């Protein structure tokens, strides 16, 4: 197991998440895809920390913070989705065009 494998795993996860975020029509699905991309970044952080700088904890610490921020983001995102859903009775992003200029 080398660093490359971990990075490939992270990249695969990220691309899957990105693909999901771009293609899912349901807002909940998009949020879940974003969580995937967060976790791909977390894998990269942890792997780089343990392979490139084994004595330090900076990468791990940053990963912990990212997890926290992700949780907060999900809270805010779900709250927004709930508010929009109550307004327009749909969960499809094509119908969300309130901010269209």
């Amino acid at each position, binding site marked *: 197991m080398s660093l*490359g494998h971990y*990075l*490939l795993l992270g*990249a695969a996860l990220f*691309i899957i998440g*990105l*693909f999901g*975020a*771009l*293609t899912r029509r349901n807002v909940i699905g*998009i949020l879940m895809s974003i969580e995937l991309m967060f976790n791909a970044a977390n894998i990269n952080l942890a792997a780089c920390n343990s392979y490139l700088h084994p004595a330090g904890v900076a990468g791990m610490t940053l990963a912990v913070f990212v997890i926290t921020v992700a949780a907060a983001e999900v809270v805010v995102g779900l709250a927004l989705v709930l508010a929009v859903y109550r307004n327009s009775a749909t969960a499809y*992003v*094509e119908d*969300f*065009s309130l*901010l*269209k*200029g």
Partner: protein
Amino acid sequence: MLQHVYLIPLIPLAASLLILLGAKEDPRSPMPFLGIAATGWCLLQSIAIFYGAATGALSLPYAADWSWFTFGATAGGKPFLYDMPVGVLIDGSAAVMLVVVTLVSFLVQVYSLSYMRGDPRFKRYYAYLSFFTASMLGLVVSSNLLVTFCCWELVGFSSYILIGFWFERPEPPYAAKKAFITTKLGDLGLYLALLLIFCQVGSFQIPQIREYVARGFMPAAAATAIGLGILCGAAGKSAQFPLFIWLPDAMEGPTPVSALIHAATMVAAGIYLVAKCYFIFAVSPVAMETVAWTGAITALLAATMAVVSYDIKRVLAFSTVSQLGFMMCALGSWGFSAGLFHLTTHAAFKALLFLCAGSVIHAVHTNDMRQMGNLDKKMPITFFATLAGTFAIAGIPGFSGFFSKDMILEKVFEHDHESPWPMTVPLFVLMALAAFSGWLLDRGEFFTRLVHFDALPGLAPAHEAAHAPAYLTWYVTAAVFFAIYLAYRLYGGSNFREAESIKRRCAPVFNLLERRYYLDEFFLALVGLSDQAARLAFWIDSEVVDRFFVDGWGLLMLALARLCHLFDDSIIDRSVDATGGLSVSLGGTLRWIVRRGLVQEYLLWSAAVMSVLTLLTLPAQRYCLGASVGLGLLAILTLLLVRRPR
């Protein structure tokens, strides 16, 4: 004593300014005595210098220089600082002139105490007199020709303000203007001569110019040009042909001023200047000849014009012109001492005659000699003084004058009482001088020893030693007595019948003389001609130069400016506007492309741009490249997916 000689012009100047600025106009003002005292001090100094020079206690010439101003100049391509000096130069002729000027000025000022009493501008009159004296003294003592020229112009200005002193009447301002402008005509030549001197010699200092000439550096042509220029100035100032037209009109000033102008200051300046620059004339026979002929013509013309004049002051004026002509003639004939000697004696007797005339006019209130008569009983002092002056000017043996001219003055006065003492005392002094100065100065050739022209080495005139034969003196004297007899016969009676009949018979001649040889008309025609020329020049200036060149240039510039405006407006501004418009339309187009409000499409654009940027910036390592290419392919794929119709 000589080291303070520079104070001689400065003290009357200071007195003049003090009188002019320091006192109010008041008939009983003591300020005139300040002017008299200043001139008196100068008179004492001048007499002391003259006495010292005469006894040999003082060695003349005395010269002293001070630095005046410096300016940058180049000579032969090398820059240097030129130091212009200002200084005094006292030689024999200057010593004599100092005495003449200060004496006449002093006596005139004393005389004026009475003559000008009650004049509304009494104080100012004295300020002007002092200023006049100061200018003339400056001219006499200066060794720098530039300063001399300044003083020369100040003399002209002083005569202007004094001739036009009674400016309420119409004639004096006219006469003053005439005098000023006529002399300016001559000053033009003098100015050019000065420029030429500086070009040639590189100095205005008379001793240096003299040295330059003495060493033979001065080319004859340059000397001729300079000499003629100086003569031109002198002809204006000293009333020589053809510029003497101002002097008879200058009679409009107060009579003491006429005495001052005629005897000591104004007209003497020209003669003195020629004498001062005599060494230049000495190397130019042409200039010398011209001086002599100018003098001779002037003397003859003025004498003939005097014969037909009835105004007592005008007769005296013509007499002055004539005598000045004699002086010029003497100078032009190598008679340096003779010319200046005559200047000195003439100053005495002409001042005397003018003060006498003033005394008479003061008493009878007319200038016309035909209305005077039998004054010898009423005004004995004036009568004898006039007689002395007349004998002197006519050249009666024993009196100071030694040239002759027709003088028809005596026994034609009429008056009631003798003038007050300030007017008679100067008459006494001048009478004594007129009668005896010739004797005093001529004894033992004293004057010639004091005032003489040191011939330049190698340039001694050929005919200097040619003496006039002795019988000439007797011929002249006989002619004088005959002329006096003739005048007595013609004008001695009360009805002038014979004179009138002669006048009738020779009417054309009299007319020519009374019109003063039409010189006034000639100059007026000249002025009219130049007036026409000026009008033509003005027309050309306004109609041709202004219209075509100045206005045309302006119009050309206007058209050019309009062209620039058009270019600016239609090309520069338009291109600026077009740049802005392009940005606006580009932005509008982009906005139209992405404005559908699909959040996933925005995300797609971001991802695509990010992937391209990543591709560009990251090091080209294989897996990163592969990942990026994959990302881009994914993005394109996603685009296709998203664009599918729902």
